[in-house]
Protein backbone atom coordinates (compact mmCIF):
# COMPACT_ATOMS: atom_id res chain seq x y z
CA UNK A 1 0.00 0.00 0.00
CA UNK A 2 1.24 3.48 -0.81
CA UNK A 3 2.44 5.60 2.06
CA UNK A 4 -0.04 8.33 1.28
CA UNK A 5 -2.91 5.86 1.49
CA UNK A 6 -1.69 4.57 4.84
CA UNK A 7 -1.47 8.09 6.15
CA UNK A 8 -5.05 8.79 5.06
CA UNK A 9 -6.19 5.89 7.23
CA UNK A 10 -5.16 7.87 10.30
CA UNK A 11 -8.11 10.12 9.58
CA UNK A 12 -10.26 7.52 11.28
CA UNK A 13 -8.88 8.57 14.66
CA UNK A 14 -11.42 10.77 16.42
CA UNK A 15 -11.73 12.33 19.86
CA UNK A 16 -13.96 10.91 22.54
CA UNK A 17 -17.54 12.25 22.32
CA UNK A 18 -17.87 13.03 26.04
CA UNK A 19 -14.59 14.87 26.08
CA UNK A 20 -15.67 16.90 23.02
CA UNK A 21 -18.96 17.87 24.65
CA UNK A 22 -17.34 19.00 27.91
CA UNK A 23 -14.58 20.90 26.18
CA UNK A 24 -16.95 22.72 23.85
CA UNK A 25 -19.30 23.67 26.63
CA UNK A 26 -16.49 25.07 28.75
CA UNK A 27 -14.99 27.11 25.93
CA UNK A 28 -18.15 28.79 24.62
CA UNK A 29 -19.12 29.74 28.17
CA UNK A 30 -15.78 31.45 28.70
CA UNK A 31 -16.30 35.23 28.56
CA UNK A 32 -15.29 36.87 25.34
CA UNK A 33 -12.13 38.97 25.70
CA UNK A 34 -12.19 42.52 24.34
CA UNK A 35 -9.88 45.49 24.77
CA UNK A 36 -11.16 47.40 27.81
CA UNK A 37 -12.82 50.71 26.90
CA UNK A 38 -11.60 53.98 28.35
CA UNK A 39 -14.25 54.71 30.94
CA UNK A 40 -12.23 56.16 33.74
CA UNK A 41 -10.92 59.75 33.48
CA UNK A 42 -7.77 58.64 35.24
CA UNK A 43 -7.20 55.98 32.60
CA UNK A 44 -7.75 58.52 29.83
CA UNK A 45 -5.33 60.90 31.55
CA UNK A 46 -2.66 58.19 31.91
CA UNK A 47 -2.97 57.25 28.27
CA UNK A 48 -2.69 60.86 27.14
CA UNK A 49 0.28 61.32 29.46
CA UNK A 50 2.05 58.47 27.80
CA UNK A 51 1.46 59.99 24.40
CA UNK A 52 2.42 63.48 25.57
CA UNK A 53 5.63 62.19 27.14
CA UNK A 54 6.59 60.51 23.92
CA UNK A 55 5.98 63.70 21.91
CA UNK A 56 7.94 65.80 24.43
CA UNK A 57 10.88 63.43 24.26
CA UNK A 58 10.97 63.50 20.48
CA UNK A 59 10.75 67.32 20.46
CA UNK A 60 13.57 67.66 22.96
CA UNK A 61 15.76 65.36 20.89
CA UNK A 62 15.10 67.37 17.74
CA UNK A 63 15.90 70.66 19.50
CA UNK A 64 19.12 69.24 20.84
CA UNK A 65 20.24 68.05 17.45
CA UNK A 66 19.31 71.22 15.54
CA UNK A 67 20.26 73.88 18.06
CA UNK A 68 22.74 71.98 20.13
CA UNK A 69 25.94 73.39 18.77
CA UNK A 70 25.05 77.06 19.12
CA UNK A 71 23.76 76.52 22.64
CA UNK A 72 26.89 74.67 23.54
CA UNK A 73 29.08 77.43 22.28
CA UNK A 74 27.20 80.04 24.28
CA UNK A 75 26.97 78.12 27.49
CA UNK A 76 30.10 76.06 27.59
CA UNK A 77 33.12 77.42 29.48
CA UNK A 78 35.36 75.57 27.15
CA UNK A 79 35.71 77.52 24.00
CA UNK A 80 36.91 75.66 21.07
CA UNK A 81 39.32 77.93 19.29
CA UNK A 82 38.72 76.47 15.90
CA UNK A 83 35.05 77.46 16.08
CA UNK A 84 35.66 81.10 17.04
CA UNK A 85 35.65 82.76 13.64
CA UNK A 86 36.08 86.36 14.86
CA UNK A 87 39.16 85.46 16.87
CA UNK A 88 40.61 83.59 13.96
CA UNK A 89 40.19 86.59 11.72
CA UNK A 90 41.83 88.94 14.18
CA UNK A 91 44.68 86.54 14.58
CA UNK A 92 45.17 86.29 10.87
CA UNK A 93 45.26 90.03 10.46
CA UNK A 94 47.87 90.33 13.15
CA UNK A 95 50.26 88.22 11.20
CA UNK A 96 52.64 90.47 9.45
CA UNK A 97 53.08 88.82 6.22
CA UNK A 98 54.74 90.42 3.35
CA UNK A 99 54.79 88.63 0.16
CA UNK A 100 57.50 89.61 -2.17
CA UNK A 101 57.03 88.65 -5.66
CA UNK A 102 60.34 88.39 -7.26
CA UNK A 103 61.06 89.86 -10.56
CA UNK A 104 60.08 87.43 -13.22
CA UNK A 105 61.34 88.38 -16.57
CA UNK A 106 59.05 86.21 -18.55
CA UNK A 107 59.08 88.07 -21.80
CA UNK A 108 62.54 87.43 -22.83
CA UNK A 109 63.45 89.51 -25.79
CA UNK A 110 66.26 88.40 -27.94
CA UNK A 111 68.94 90.19 -26.13
CA UNK A 112 72.38 89.95 -27.72
CA UNK A 113 74.90 87.91 -25.93
CA UNK A 114 77.95 89.61 -24.48
CA UNK A 115 80.50 89.75 -27.34
CA UNK A 116 83.56 88.91 -25.41
CA UNK A 117 82.13 86.03 -23.55
CA UNK A 118 84.04 82.85 -23.65
CA UNK A 119 82.36 79.84 -25.19
CA UNK A 120 81.94 78.32 -21.78
CA UNK A 121 80.44 81.40 -20.23
CA UNK A 122 78.36 82.12 -23.31
CA UNK A 123 76.96 78.60 -23.16
CA UNK A 124 76.29 79.13 -19.44
CA UNK A 125 74.50 82.36 -20.23
CA UNK A 126 72.50 80.61 -22.91
CA UNK A 127 71.65 77.84 -20.42
CA UNK A 128 70.68 80.40 -17.86
CA UNK A 129 68.50 82.25 -20.36
CA UNK A 130 66.96 78.94 -21.42
CA UNK A 131 66.11 78.08 -17.82
CA UNK A 132 64.75 81.51 -17.05
CA UNK A 133 62.66 81.49 -20.23
CA UNK A 134 61.26 78.12 -19.26
CA UNK A 135 60.46 79.39 -15.79
CA UNK A 136 58.83 82.46 -17.33
CA UNK A 137 56.75 80.31 -19.61
CA UNK A 138 55.69 78.16 -16.72
CA UNK A 139 54.77 81.21 -14.71
CA UNK A 140 52.77 82.58 -17.60
CA UNK A 141 50.91 79.32 -17.95
CA UNK A 142 50.06 79.40 -14.23
CA UNK A 143 48.63 82.87 -14.68
CA UNK A 144 51.13 84.69 -12.56
CA UNK A 145 51.25 88.36 -13.40
CA UNK A 146 54.68 89.76 -14.17
CA UNK A 147 55.83 91.64 -11.18
CA UNK A 148 58.35 94.33 -11.79
CA UNK A 149 59.05 95.09 -8.23
CA UNK A 150 58.50 93.51 -4.93
CA UNK A 151 55.40 94.69 -3.17
CA UNK A 152 53.66 94.02 0.07
CA UNK A 153 49.99 93.19 0.00
CA UNK A 154 47.36 92.56 2.62
CA UNK A 155 46.52 89.15 3.95
CA UNK A 156 43.19 89.01 2.17
CA UNK A 157 44.82 89.79 -1.17
CA UNK A 158 47.50 87.20 -0.56
CA UNK A 159 44.93 84.56 0.38
CA UNK A 160 42.82 85.52 -2.61
CA UNK A 161 45.76 85.17 -4.97
CA UNK A 162 46.78 81.87 -3.45
CA UNK A 163 43.21 80.64 -3.72
CA UNK A 164 43.22 81.48 -7.41
Amino acid at each position, binding site marked *: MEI*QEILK*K*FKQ*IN*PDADYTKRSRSF*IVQTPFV*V*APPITSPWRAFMQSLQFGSAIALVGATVILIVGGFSSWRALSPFRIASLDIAALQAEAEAVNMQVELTDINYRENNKPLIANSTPASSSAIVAKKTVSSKVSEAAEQMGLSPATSSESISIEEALYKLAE
Partner: protein
Amino acid sequence: MLDGESKIVLKAVGGEASAFGLLYDHYQPSIYRFVILKVSRREEAEDLTHQVFLNAWQNIHKYKDLGFPFSSWLYHIARNLIIDHYRAKREHLNVDDMENELMAEIVNLPDTETELRMEMERARGAIKKLSPLHQDVLLMRFVEELSIRETAKAIGKSEGAVKVLQFRAIEKLKKMLK
Protein backbone atom coordinates in the same frame (compact mmCIF):
# COMPACT_ATOMS: atom_id res chain seq x y z
CA MET B 1 -13.12 24.77 4.83
CA LEU B 2 -16.48 25.49 6.38
CA ASP B 3 -19.27 26.81 4.16
CA GLY B 4 -19.69 30.53 4.73
CA GLU B 5 -16.63 30.43 6.93
CA SER B 6 -15.79 34.11 6.44
CA LYS B 7 -19.12 35.23 7.87
CA ILE B 8 -18.96 32.77 10.73
CA VAL B 9 -15.44 33.89 11.60
CA LEU B 10 -16.55 37.53 11.44
CA LYS B 11 -19.33 36.82 13.92
CA ALA B 12 -16.94 34.93 16.19
CA VAL B 13 -14.48 37.84 16.07
CA GLY B 14 -17.37 40.05 17.10
CA GLY B 15 -17.94 37.90 20.18
CA GLU B 16 -20.66 35.46 19.14
CA ALA B 17 -19.97 32.28 21.08
CA SER B 18 -22.37 30.26 18.95
CA ALA B 19 -20.37 31.15 15.83
CA PHE B 20 -17.18 30.01 17.50
CA GLY B 21 -18.99 26.82 18.52
CA LEU B 22 -19.57 26.06 14.83
CA LEU B 23 -15.90 26.52 14.12
CA TYR B 24 -15.09 24.26 17.07
CA ASP B 25 -17.38 21.51 15.80
CA HIS B 26 -15.82 21.60 12.37
CA TYR B 27 -12.13 21.78 13.26
CA GLN B 28 -11.83 20.05 16.61
CA PRO B 29 -11.47 16.47 15.25
CA SER B 30 -8.71 17.56 12.86
CA ILE B 31 -6.78 19.41 15.52
CA TYR B 32 -7.18 16.47 17.92
CA ARG B 33 -5.87 14.02 15.31
CA PHE B 34 -2.92 16.24 14.54
CA VAL B 35 -2.08 16.60 18.21
CA ILE B 36 -2.43 12.93 19.16
CA LEU B 37 -0.23 11.84 16.25
CA LYS B 38 2.41 14.21 17.59
CA VAL B 39 2.21 13.55 21.33
CA SER B 40 0.87 9.97 21.20
CA ARG B 41 -0.99 10.15 24.51
CA ARG B 42 -4.74 10.58 24.65
CA GLU B 43 -4.94 12.64 27.84
CA GLU B 44 -2.28 15.05 26.72
CA ALA B 45 -3.86 15.29 23.27
CA GLU B 46 -7.21 16.15 24.85
CA ASP B 47 -5.66 18.78 27.11
CA LEU B 48 -3.69 20.35 24.29
CA THR B 49 -6.66 20.34 21.90
CA HIS B 50 -8.79 22.00 24.54
CA GLN B 51 -6.06 24.60 25.10
CA VAL B 52 -5.81 25.29 21.36
CA PHE B 53 -9.47 26.25 21.14
CA LEU B 54 -9.46 28.12 24.43
CA ASN B 55 -6.51 30.23 23.26
CA ALA B 56 -8.22 30.77 19.92
CA TRP B 57 -11.46 31.96 21.60
CA GLN B 58 -9.58 34.26 23.99
CA ASN B 59 -7.56 35.82 21.19
CA ILE B 60 -10.06 35.78 18.37
CA HIS B 61 -10.64 39.54 18.69
CA LYS B 62 -7.10 39.92 17.30
CA TYR B 63 -7.74 37.59 14.36
CA LYS B 64 -7.65 39.20 10.90
CA ASP B 65 -9.00 37.47 7.83
CA LEU B 66 -6.14 37.63 5.34
CA GLY B 67 -7.71 35.20 2.90
CA PHE B 68 -6.43 32.06 4.60
CA PRO B 69 -8.64 29.38 6.16
CA PHE B 70 -9.32 29.64 9.85
CA SER B 71 -7.77 26.19 10.28
CA SER B 72 -4.31 27.54 9.41
CA TRP B 73 -4.47 29.76 12.45
CA LEU B 74 -5.63 26.85 14.63
CA TYR B 75 -2.83 24.60 13.42
CA HIS B 76 -0.39 27.40 14.08
CA ILE B 77 -1.60 27.63 17.68
CA ALA B 78 -1.47 23.83 17.99
CA ARG B 79 2.12 23.66 16.77
CA ASN B 80 3.26 26.28 19.24
CA LEU B 81 1.50 24.53 22.13
CA ILE B 82 3.07 21.20 21.19
CA ILE B 83 6.52 22.79 21.12
CA ASP B 84 5.92 24.30 24.57
CA HIS B 85 4.57 20.95 25.77
CA TYR B 86 7.74 19.13 24.70
CA ARG B 87 9.93 21.75 26.32
CA ALA B 88 8.09 21.44 29.60
CA LYS B 89 7.77 17.68 29.62
CA ARG B 90 11.13 16.68 28.20
CA GLU B 91 12.42 15.10 31.36
CA HIS B 92 9.32 13.05 32.00
CA LEU B 93 8.72 11.52 28.59
CA ASN B 94 8.51 7.76 28.29
CA VAL B 95 8.49 6.91 24.64
CA ASP B 96 7.26 3.34 25.12
CA ASP B 97 4.17 4.40 27.04
CA MET B 98 3.42 7.02 24.44
CA GLU B 99 3.55 4.55 21.59
CA ASN B 100 1.40 1.98 23.40
CA GLU B 101 -1.37 4.49 23.95
CA LEU B 102 -1.43 5.56 20.36
CA MET B 103 -1.34 1.99 19.13
CA ALA B 104 -4.35 1.30 21.32
CA GLU B 105 -6.12 4.10 19.50
CA ILE B 106 -5.26 2.55 16.17
CA VAL B 107 -6.21 -0.97 17.24
CA ASN B 108 -9.65 0.24 18.32
CA LEU B 109 -10.37 1.81 14.97
CA PRO B 110 -13.43 0.37 13.30
CA ASP B 111 -13.10 -1.40 9.97
CA THR B 112 -9.36 -1.83 10.10
CA GLU B 113 -7.86 -5.13 9.19
CA THR B 114 -4.90 -6.60 11.00
CA GLU B 115 -2.55 -6.02 8.11
CA LEU B 116 -3.61 -2.40 7.82
CA ARG B 117 -3.14 -1.89 11.53
CA MET B 118 0.36 -3.25 11.29
CA GLU B 119 1.14 -0.96 8.40
CA MET B 120 -0.24 1.98 10.31
CA GLU B 121 1.85 1.11 13.35
CA ARG B 122 4.99 0.92 11.25
CA ALA B 123 4.17 4.19 9.52
CA ARG B 124 3.49 5.86 12.82
CA GLY B 125 6.83 4.65 14.21
CA ALA B 126 8.65 5.91 11.11
CA ILE B 127 6.91 9.30 11.18
CA LYS B 128 8.04 9.75 14.77
CA LYS B 129 11.66 9.54 13.59
CA LEU B 130 11.26 12.43 11.18
CA SER B 131 12.00 16.02 12.12
CA PRO B 132 9.04 17.94 13.63
CA LEU B 133 8.69 20.04 10.49
CA HIS B 134 8.55 16.97 8.22
CA GLN B 135 6.02 15.38 10.55
CA ASP B 136 3.82 18.48 10.45
CA VAL B 137 3.86 18.66 6.67
CA LEU B 138 3.02 14.96 6.28
CA LEU B 139 0.20 15.06 8.82
CA MET B 140 -1.31 18.27 7.43
CA ARG B 141 -1.02 17.28 3.79
CA PHE B 142 -1.91 13.58 3.87
CA VAL B 143 -3.89 13.00 7.06
CA GLU B 144 -5.82 16.28 7.25
CA GLU B 145 -5.59 16.90 3.48
CA LEU B 146 -4.81 20.58 3.75
CA SER B 147 -3.73 22.37 0.61
CA ILE B 148 -0.15 23.46 0.14
CA ARG B 149 -1.22 27.06 0.71
CA GLU B 150 -2.97 26.23 3.98
CA THR B 151 -0.03 24.13 5.15
CA ALA B 152 2.42 26.89 4.29
CA LYS B 153 0.43 29.39 6.34
CA ALA B 154 0.12 27.00 9.27
CA ILE B 155 3.83 26.27 9.52
CA GLY B 156 5.01 29.72 8.50
CA LYS B 157 6.87 28.70 5.37
CA SER B 158 6.52 29.43 1.67
CA GLU B 159 4.57 27.13 -0.63
CA GLY B 160 7.78 26.14 -2.37
CA ALA B 161 9.32 25.18 0.95
CA VAL B 162 6.30 23.04 1.77
CA LYS B 163 6.66 21.15 -1.52
CA VAL B 164 10.31 20.47 -0.82
CA LEU B 165 9.59 19.40 2.77
CA GLN B 166 6.83 17.11 1.59
CA PHE B 167 9.01 15.47 -1.05
CA ARG B 168 11.86 14.89 1.39
CA ALA B 169 9.55 13.59 4.11
CA ILE B 170 8.00 11.04 1.75
CA GLU B 171 11.41 9.91 0.52
CA LYS B 172 12.69 9.42 4.07
CA LEU B 173 9.55 7.59 5.06
CA LYS B 174 9.84 5.25 2.09
CA LYS B 175 13.43 4.42 2.98
CA MET B 176 12.51 3.69 6.60
CA LEU B 177 9.57 1.49 5.66
CA LYS B 178 11.48 -0.63 3.10
